């Protein structure tokens, strides 16, 4: 009897210790939200990371582009935020400035996988706020000038325009209304896309969102106005996004287009002519270069319960950056990664230019009130281009509005 009791007690003790051991080895689960589908990097990397035998499991949720900010804000306010989120770079500062994102400066300094110096300045700037790091760039992109080499040859223009004047004169030569060909396509839409396309011009001329009404910027808007007034670009430039504008270039209805590397695959499929990419034209020879900077950043929410596990995931993602282009067609935001050739001559040539252009890419902001700043700039562009005010007056008004926001 006593023996039976002993062995029973032993069994209970043993099994409870097994349960305890199991509980100790139980995985940590972190949540990642991003807009990537199951064939895009964030979701693919998250799955791989989850399958590593490191005691960290990942719960991935895909969110729509338009919902990123509102969904994550709501989640943060109710304490149900994910551990990691991928957020569009101009909106990063909105979160970091309000303490919603975790300051990872020290973690990065101690990390061997993430080295802040390896990132391009623009993307790195977008994850920084007051000298601290609040995230890691996920990928990056920028804009440059695509041009139709066949049309250039036919018009007798030897090379892609390098300055604004050359751009205008090339557009005038190439413009051919009788054949439905515009000189240039770009986007001046009243949305973030318009700001994205205009700011590089302002920055090349020595301006920025903080001094949007200085003479160089006025000159830039003048050039845009000339393009539209002389119908060198379609009037629909005002309401068309970059994707649709590039569509007209691919169809042969525009001789040049300003857009980004996300067009490369489509252009190779659609464009039935020889084309090339060139750096954005500058105000005059020798002027400083600039371009826009797009794409998303990763960040850890400050109320994450597993910040260390989440950071491990970011380290894993960063270690996969060399796969971004070959597998997903995206550009890593890093200067220490050489992108392998694809074997498609047009694409490889274009890529070289985009990588060169990336060196000059500047982040929008960073500023927590970016949407309002951006709206003021869009309003100025649209008012000037539709003749509601002179470029100078429109930009003066924008400067006043922006000053009120950033005071």
């Amino acid at each position, binding site marked *: 009897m006593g023996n039976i009791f002993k062995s029973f007690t032993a069994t209970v003790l043993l099994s409870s210790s097994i349960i305890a051991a199991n509980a100790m080895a139980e995985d940590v689960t972190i949540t990642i939200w991003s807009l990537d589908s199951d064939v895009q990097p964030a979701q693919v990397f998250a799955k791989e990371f989850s399958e590593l035998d490191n005691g960290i499991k990942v719960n991935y949720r895909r969110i729509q582009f338009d919902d990123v*900010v*509102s969904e994550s*804000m*709501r989640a943060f*306010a*109710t304490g149900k935020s994910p551990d990691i989120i991928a957020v569009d770079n101009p909106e990063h500062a*909105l979160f970091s400035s*309000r303490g919603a994102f975790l300051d990872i400066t020290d973690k990065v300094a101690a990390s061997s996988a993430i080295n802040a110096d390896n990132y391009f300045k623009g993307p790195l700037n977008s994850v920084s706020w007051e000298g601290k790091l609040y995230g890691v760039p996920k990928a990056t992109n920028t804009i440059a000038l695509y041009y139709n080499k066949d049309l250039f040859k036919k018009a007798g223009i030897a090379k892609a325009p390098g300055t604004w004047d050359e751009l205008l004169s090339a557009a005038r030569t190439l413009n051919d209304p009788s054949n*439905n060909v515009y000189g240039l396509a770009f986007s001046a*839409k*009243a*949305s973030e896309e318009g700001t994205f396309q205009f700011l590089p011009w302002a920055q090349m001329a020595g301006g920025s969102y903080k001094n949007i009404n200085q003479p160089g910027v006025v000159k830039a808007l003048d050039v845009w106005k000339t393009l539209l007034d002389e119908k060198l670009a*379609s*009037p*629909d*430039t*005002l*309401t*068309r996004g970059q994707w649709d504008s590039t569509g*007209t270039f691919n169809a042969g*209805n525009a001789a040049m287009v300003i857009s980004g590397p996300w067009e490369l695959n489509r252009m190779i499929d659609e464009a039935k002519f020889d084309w090339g990419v060139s750096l954005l034209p500058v105000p005059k020879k020798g002027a400083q270069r600039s371009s826009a900077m797009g794409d998303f950043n990763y960040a850890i929410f400050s109320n994450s319960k597993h910040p260390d596990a989440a950071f491990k995931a970011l380290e894993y993602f960063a270690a996969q950056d060399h796969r971004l282009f070959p597998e997903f067609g995206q550009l890593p935001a890093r200067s220490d990664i050489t992108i392998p050739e694809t074997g498609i001559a047009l694409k490889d040539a274009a890529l070289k230019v985009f990588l060169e252009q990336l060196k000059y890419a500047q982040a929008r902001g960073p500023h927590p009130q970016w*949407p*309002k700043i951006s*709206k003021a700039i869009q*309003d100025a562009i*649209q*008012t000037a*281009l*539709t*003749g*509601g005010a002179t470029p100078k007056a429109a930009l003066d*008004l924008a400067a006043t509005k922006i000053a009120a926001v950033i005071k």
Partner: protein
Amino acid sequence: MRALLASLRDGRGFDISLISITMTFLLLFCGVPLIYNAIMSFQEVDIFNLNTFIRPWVGFDNYRALFADATTLPIFYNTLVFVFFSIAGQFLVGFALALFFSLKFSGSTYLRGLFLVSWVMPGLVVGAIWNWILSGDFGILNHVLKYIGVISDNIFWRSDIHFSLWAVIIANIWLGTAFNMILLSVGLAAIPNDIYEAAQLDGANAIQRFRTITLPMMRATIGAVVSLGLIFTLQQFDLFAAITSGGPANSSNVAQYRAWEMSFKEYDFARGATISVLMIGVVMIASIIYVRSTKQEIRG
């Protein structure tokens, strides 16, 4: 006690309990949000304090800021133009079609039914299709107008500040005509035929019959159609999002789209609520007209 039970089963109590269900529902899902919206317009609300009730109280600051903004008055003017011409267009075309189909030629009922297809389509889809039709460089509308010789140069419907609002109005008239036609058809069918016969015997011609019989008998229906039209038109959002996004340079922006931009593009929920409060005022007036016109409904 028995009296109370009896009244609950069949009497005042029964009526009240039925009404109270509806009233509770209305108060909960219409009243509370309306009041909440009004309160928000007096606060400073951004995305970080959206979840809390205690927010900085700013009095009429949002209203002042709204009217200090140079874009506000043109946007309200656009709203007026949009509402007036959309309703006028929808009503006139709808009424004409309703009269046409009331002639009862063979197949008229089926054809009338087909018109409802446009009403069934989602606004965003309608917007996307009109986007192509109205496109400047390769839109079918420009092509047709050029072909029949009305215009010689392409009209950039979406991008020309003189046409952008009209582009949305045209699409909205197309979208709303079917609804107007169906409601007006019902009204026409309710007019007893013998009145027309009597008038005809008295020697009244078609125009006189229309003016002295059809129009007066349709008063209630017309009132209802117009005020419902006002509400639907003030609700119209999808077409703006799909066709012009309110642009260029706010030339086709209207109050309802601006309210959305404020709240969900610039994350200034208070300012968005302020515009909504002003719009609620207008809708209230329309509702009063609607209620009054349906009250006098003549039952044939």
